[in-house]
Structures are given as C-alpha cells and as structure tokens.
C-alpha cells in the first residue's frame, strides 16, 4: 500500500474556542480536520467532566493530519488560539494513505 509521511496534530481545547480554532486552521490553509468529543479530564486547572453540562462547556479534541512541511504554519495558527486558554497540543509522526488528500 502506498503510504506517505504526515504529522498527526492533536489539539485539546475548550469547547467555546472550537470555532475560532477551526477558523484559524482553515485560514492557515489546513484542508482537513476531525473533531472528537471529550468526556472529561484533568490538568493544571483541575478536574472537569462533561456530564450534566448544559452550555458550551468542556473540551473537544481536534485532530489534523497534514504534510510535514506544513506543520509549522499549522502550529503557529493553533498556538495563537490555544495560547491564552486551557488546552494541550501534541504532534505525532504518522503515515497516510491517499496523500493527495492532504
């Protein structure tokens, strides 16, 4: 199977920021991402859980697969949104099928 190197960026961010993050990613030329729900978690700002919440509470996980050479642009864009907020950003090496999509 024909595989191509890529980076998998995983951004956990507060739900009220989701729109701003994805807008920033799109502006930075990121062509694809996937948003996963998050049930709860723990960090420097304490423990939280989504259960019973009503508003745009909690966090979401945004996953982007991108070509390695575009990583920096993406991280700059993401960082500008995440920086003053609660959230973590991690990057993993990955291989993808159908590279023309990224």
């Amino acid at each position, binding site marked *: 199977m024909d595989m191509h190197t890529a980076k998998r960026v995983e951004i956990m961010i507060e739900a*009220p920021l989701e729109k*701003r993050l994805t807008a920033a990613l799109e502006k930075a030329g990121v062509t694809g991402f996937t948003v996963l729900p998050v049930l709860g978690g723990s960090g420097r700002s304490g423990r939280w859980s989504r*259960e019973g919440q009503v508003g745009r509470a909690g966090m979401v996980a945004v996953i982007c697969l991108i070509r390695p050479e575009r990583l920096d642009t993406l991280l700059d864009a993401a960082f500008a949104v995440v920086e003053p907020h609660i959230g973590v950003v991690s990057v993993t090496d990955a291989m993808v099928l159908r590279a023309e999509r990224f």
Partner: protein
Amino acid sequence: MSSIFDLAASNLISPIILSFALGLMAAWARSDLTIPEAIAKGMSIYLLFAIGFKGGASVAAHGVDAKLLTAVGAGVVLSFGLPLVAFTLLKIMTKLSKIDAAAIAAHYGSISIVTFVAATSVLEGRAISSEGYLVAVAAAMEAPAILSALWLVARGGTNAKMDDGLIREIMLNGSIVLLVGAFVIGMITGEKGLAEIAPFIVSPFKGVLCLFLLDMGLIAGRGLRAAKGVVTLPIVAFGILMPLIGATFGLAAALLVGLSTGGVLLLMVLAASASYIAVPAAMRVALPQANPAIYLTLSLGITFPFNLTLGIPLYLTVAQMVTGG
C-alpha cells in the same frame, strides 16, 4: 415578616427545590448519579421553548402592552449597569484581580433563565399573574452585561479579546434565539397555538423542571466540592449580597415601568440572578485569564441556590408589600 418565613418554608418543601437539594447532596456524598449531557441540554431546550412560547401567547392574549418596550429598555439598562455595581462591590469586598472581578460582574448583570422559570412557577402556584413580555426582557438582559464587563477591563488597559465574532455569538447564542423565537411563535399563534401544544409545554413543565434542577444541583454540588479553597468567605458574602442589591435595582426599575406584582417579582429575580450558561462561555473566549472556578461557583453554587430558596420568597414578599398585590 413571619409570612416571609412561611413563604420560604412552603417554597422550600416544593418538589422543585427538593430536587435541587437532592442533586446537591448526591454530589456532596460523591454519588455517581449523573444526567447525560444530551438530556440536560434537551431539558434546557424544552424549558426555553416552553417559557418563551407561554410568554408570547400571554402577550397575544392580553394585547401588546404599551409598557413592553419600556420594560425591555429597563432590562437593558439594568444589564448594562449592574456589572458596574458588582465590580465596585467586588473591588471593595474582595482581593480579586480586576479581570476576575470583571468576569464575575458580567455574570451578575446577565440573568439565569432557570431562576426566572422557578419564579414563574412560584407565581403560578399562588395564582399571581405577570406580564408575558418579561420573557422578552429576560432575553434582552442576557448580553449587555458582557459588553459592560469587557469595557471595565479595556478601560484598565488590559486587552479583552473582543471581536466581531464574539458580539455576534453573544447576540445570537442559542438560548437567546430559542427564547425570543419561541416568544414570537407564541405571539403569532396565540391562545390557539398554545392550546395545541399545551399538553407538551404546560402540563409536564414542572416535572421537567424538577429533573433539570436535580442536574443543576449535581453540577453546583460538584463545583462547590472542587472549589474549596478558591472561593473565600468574602466572595461567598458577595454571592449573597449582590442578588439583594440587584433585586433592589430591579424593584426600582419595575416600579418605574409600572409592572404588576408578578411582573415586579420577575424583574427583581432577573436583576438578582446570575448567568451560568451564556456568560461563562463568552468569558472563556473574551477573558481567558479569568478563573472559571470562581465565577461558576459563585453564580451556580452560591447565588443560584440562594435565590431559589430564600431570594424568591423574599422578593415576592417585598413585591407584594410594595405593590399592595
């Protein structure tokens, strides 16, 4: 005075309040009782739709009151003004940073629709009528307080993250749109529309409110558990004093507008209550440096239960005394 206590006592043993208390206690005892997020959101959609629709239908039935606009205007002024009062009070009473104080102030200028709903159900239980358009006033009071608070911060030189997107988000947030939309539908379809869907939005209303308050109790209780240490005694004192001050302003405004006894109560409750849905989300975007543990605990863990249990009966007694109703 004894009637306040009677009223408070009879209020306290209603299924609504006891459901909230059950949630608080379950959280306190660290029970794993939880309401799924989707169900909680579904119930809040139901409550907003029902309260909006009933308000609109009532306006349709009683004719569009000339006071509607005045009342909405009064609400907007309150929502703009109360954050300034709250901010000053916080700077005097507590050692909170300017950012934290401003964030809290935004919550107290805005409103808690669930407290409003609980007050309407107290009115219904006593067969006291009120102006249907207070639902529109409630909607109008959600957003201005946020602008006030951001102005408080910006004035001090700190950068609040205020952009067009945020203003749009605040004005068009789901709760406001649903509340106003249902109000308009109620106004258009009137009594006939209400009759069609009353078995859905009227009869089971109080029961749904019980389960919703159970959830609020669970969240408030878990918040209080987690916030031990963050929320100091002066902050707690603010959480009880501020609704009393807010209610006083609400009373003055209501009398100026010339509302009925029920209307006076509801405007007092709006002014006394603090947001814990729309404003927290806006604060995470606009004032991320402010500590959410403080403002959420204050509004949901202190002021909300205070209004629910003691505040509403107190305000009602005052409203009845003042209006002679």
